[in-house]
């Protein structure tokens, strides 16, 4: 039964890939909270769309993004070739949310409880998108923190099990203590591109890789 289910699922995915050469790829931006996912999404949108409206607000307070937000028809030009993608900025994934941690960020209890409730809904939504609605993943990690966490290991495993192309970005390379090599060591099976989405450092290589992976 397991073999039959696996076979059906793999054939379905292969067929969908085969017959959708021109389909616009929907790329999910995933990662743990505070990795800089929204900063990256905003940078991409501002670089490649006419009006450059922000995808969402950026903040140092965890779980600022509590709803998945999609920005459609982003046209990225690389080497005379145009790649059109939709990007989906997702809430940071975690296995726990404690509202008392928000109290440390000058929030009153009601606001902290509301934020934690919205954060949990956002994480559940992000997981649903990952299983059902994205064609590829940009996985964003804070290069100044330890990448070898259970959430990262599980999420990369989930992405691999879905056969989704994944590009890992080592973000915040402008910070003291950032280590791209530490991320490469944690996930040697994938390519890691260093970047500072905030400062715009190395974005050209990021766009080259987006075109290569998702074009």
């Amino acid at each position, binding site marked *: 039964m*397991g*073999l039959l289910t*696996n*076979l059906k699922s*793999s054939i379905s995915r292969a067929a969908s890939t085969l017959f959708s050469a021109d389909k616009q790829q929907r790329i999910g931006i995933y990662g743990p909270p505070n990795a800089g996912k929204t900063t990256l999404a905003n940078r991409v949108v501002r670089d490649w769309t006419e009006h450059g409206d922000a995808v969402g607000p950026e903040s140092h307070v965890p779980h600022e993004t509590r709803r998945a937000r999609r920005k459609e028809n982003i046209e990225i030009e690389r080497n005379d070739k145009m790649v059109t993608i939709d990007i989906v900025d997702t809430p940071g*994934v*975690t*296995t*726990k*949310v*404690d*509202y008392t941690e928000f109290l440390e960020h000058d929030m009153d209890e009601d606001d902290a*409880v509301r934020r*934690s*409730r919205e954060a*949990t*809904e956002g*994480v*559940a939504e992000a*997981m*649903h998108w*990952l*299983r059902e609605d994205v064609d590829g993943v940009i996985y964003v990690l804070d290069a100044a923190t330890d990448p*070898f966490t*259970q959430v990262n*290991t*599980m999420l990369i*495993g*989930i992405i*691999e*099990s*879905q*056969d989704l192309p994944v590009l890992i970005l080592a973000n915040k390379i402008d910070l003291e203590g950032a280590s791209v090599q530490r991320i490469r060591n944690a996930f040697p099976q994938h390519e890691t591109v260093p970047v500072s989405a905030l400062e715009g450092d190395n974005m050209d290589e990021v766009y080259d890789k987006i075109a290569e992976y998702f074009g």
Partner: protein
Amino acid sequence: MAEVKQPGDGVRIDLISGERMAGLTGMEKIRMILDGVREGNIVILEEGLSPDEESKLIEVTMTEISPDEFNGIEIETYPRSEAADTSFLGRLMGKESTKKLTVIGPANQIETLHKDETLIQTLVSRK
């Protein structure tokens, strides 16, 4: 007759064999894990969960978090073995290995002290 210990005496650890898990559906596994963890137990799975089950475990956990009652879970596994058959053909043939000891507990009671390829050290406290 031996005295039956009350839950307040310590922390209960449920070690669940791969054989027991094999007979359950994905949702039954998740329900069993979360029911145990919400009672304050540490659940140890001999053979772990598949990536799809892990994804659903995160999703269901999020729907159950409630302020001052349940903050979520802490979960630790050994890293996936490099030798595991994770190729496309391997998965197609159902050979993907998910056999990895997994420790799951309430986020406010379990803290990971150290983790590497061969050792998981956790500190477990009572409620």
